């Protein structure tokens, strides 16, 4: 399935006149140069270069208001910013506004406080697959596996609006995972969670990388920052430091 999605994305990007093939080796998943974001007159950040490797895991830290969430939202195509150049899987994306659909399908952003649609837990998890017009049987089996992965199978018949913060976050992670995104952007996934709920979410994150996604997590959580193999970005005074 990963192969199928990957292939279709590449094909779609090649077909798009706004992109051109450049590097077939695709070591770097995403490379952005000259990324600037203003809030009104104020320059929020001015990042010379950011590179996300295939199967890479990163945490993005910085004080409150540094622009972590905004940076993730820009990378996820949810907010506009000035971008000098953007390369994805070896392809130069010549026009980033609006974000090409193939890129939006390959990059999934998960909110700090995920919102669930007022349908059912399985429908929420399978929503992105429905958009990709997969067969019902395939969606059902994928959703089933994802619910087991996230430990939310027992919530199958629960009202999504009644779930706790931790349950919501796990459903949102499952909803993102089934899409097998090339890049997953998690905005403070453990904030406002404590105890077991927080641990359950932390346990899921390394398995997302193992499943083939690159992951960038905006957070303050020391346990997430300390996960093995995780590289650290820090936003400070509008600049991105790589540690």
């Amino acid at each position, binding site marked *: 399935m990963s192969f199928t999605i990957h292939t279709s994305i590449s094909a779609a990007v090649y077909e798009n006149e706004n992109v051109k093939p450049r590097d077939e080796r695709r070591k770097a998943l995403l490379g952005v140069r000259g990324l600037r974001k203003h809030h009104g007159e104020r320059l929020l950040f001015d990042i010379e270069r950011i590179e996300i490797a295939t199967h890479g895991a990163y945490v993005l830290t910085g004080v409150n208001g540094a622009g972590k969430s905004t940076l993730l939202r820009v990378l996820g195509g949810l907010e506009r910013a000035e971008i000098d150049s953007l390369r994805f899987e070896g392809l130069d994306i010549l026009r980033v506004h609006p974000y090409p659909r193939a890129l939006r399908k390959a990059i999934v952003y998960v909110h700090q406080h995920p*919102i669930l*649609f007022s349908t059912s837990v399985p429908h929420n998890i399978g929503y992105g697959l429905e*958009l990709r017009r997969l067969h019902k049987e395939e969606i059902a089996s994928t959703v089933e596996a994802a619910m087991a992965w996230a430990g939310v199978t027992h919530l199958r018949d629960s009202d999504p609006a009644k779930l706790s913060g931790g349950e919501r976050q796990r459903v949102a992670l499952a909803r993102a995972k089934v899409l097998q995104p090339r890049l997953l952007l998690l905005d403070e996934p453990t904030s406002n969670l404590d105890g077991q709920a927080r641990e359950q979410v932390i346990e899921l994150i390394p398995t997302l990388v193992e499943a083939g996604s690159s992951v960038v997590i905006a957070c303050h959580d020391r346990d997430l920052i300390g996960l093995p193999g995780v590289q650290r970005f820090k936003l400070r005074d509008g600049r991105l430091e790589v540690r």
Partner: protein
Amino acid sequence: MVDATLHAFVLLFTGDPDLWRIIWVSLKTSVIGLLLAAPPAILLGYFIAMYRFRGRRIAIWLAQAALSLPTVLIGLLLYLLLSRRGPLGDLQWLFSQPGIVFGQCVVALPVLLAFTLAAVQALDPRYAETAIALGASRWQVMARMLYEGRFGVMAAVLSGFGRVISEVGCALMVGGNIEGQTRTITTAIALETSKGEFAQGIALGIVLVAIALLMNGALMLLQGDAHAARERA
């Protein structure tokens, strides 16, 4: 008064053909007008709520101002449009059911638009962002948002129906109150009362009150569901 009321019930329950034809014309023209108005009004309400563009505030102002536009004025404008020398005179819709449908459509538009706009504006913007983040196209985002705001949108449709079934000015001016053709509940009540024939007017009034009670009951149920959904969230 008592005699007229008793006679009204007799007319209602004996299936008086004239009375039920009037009710049928009213329901038919109102429902068709509403169905024609709903898609563009809901679409427009959604786009005004979701997108930032130059003149958006003016669009909201106009949409809300149109709510308080007297239907008799809408009727006058449509009369001028549809009259033989008017720009739409060739359609020959004046004093015909298509003319009333056109009028009901125009009367329903602002209600549907303004209520849909308010319903979509009240939604958490993360619904749209989540759909986008999961790969939804612009139309798929709209479908998701309208589903999440379905109680508000249904309330818009019910309110629109309430407005068109109970309005008299436009139906009278554009329809002409022709018996068996363009006579609606409200125009019939006005005519019968002016003639001093109260029984049919009271019978039609009972029908209007029943429709109003039904509409408001449905609205209350929807509002209750929406409130419960908000509380759960």
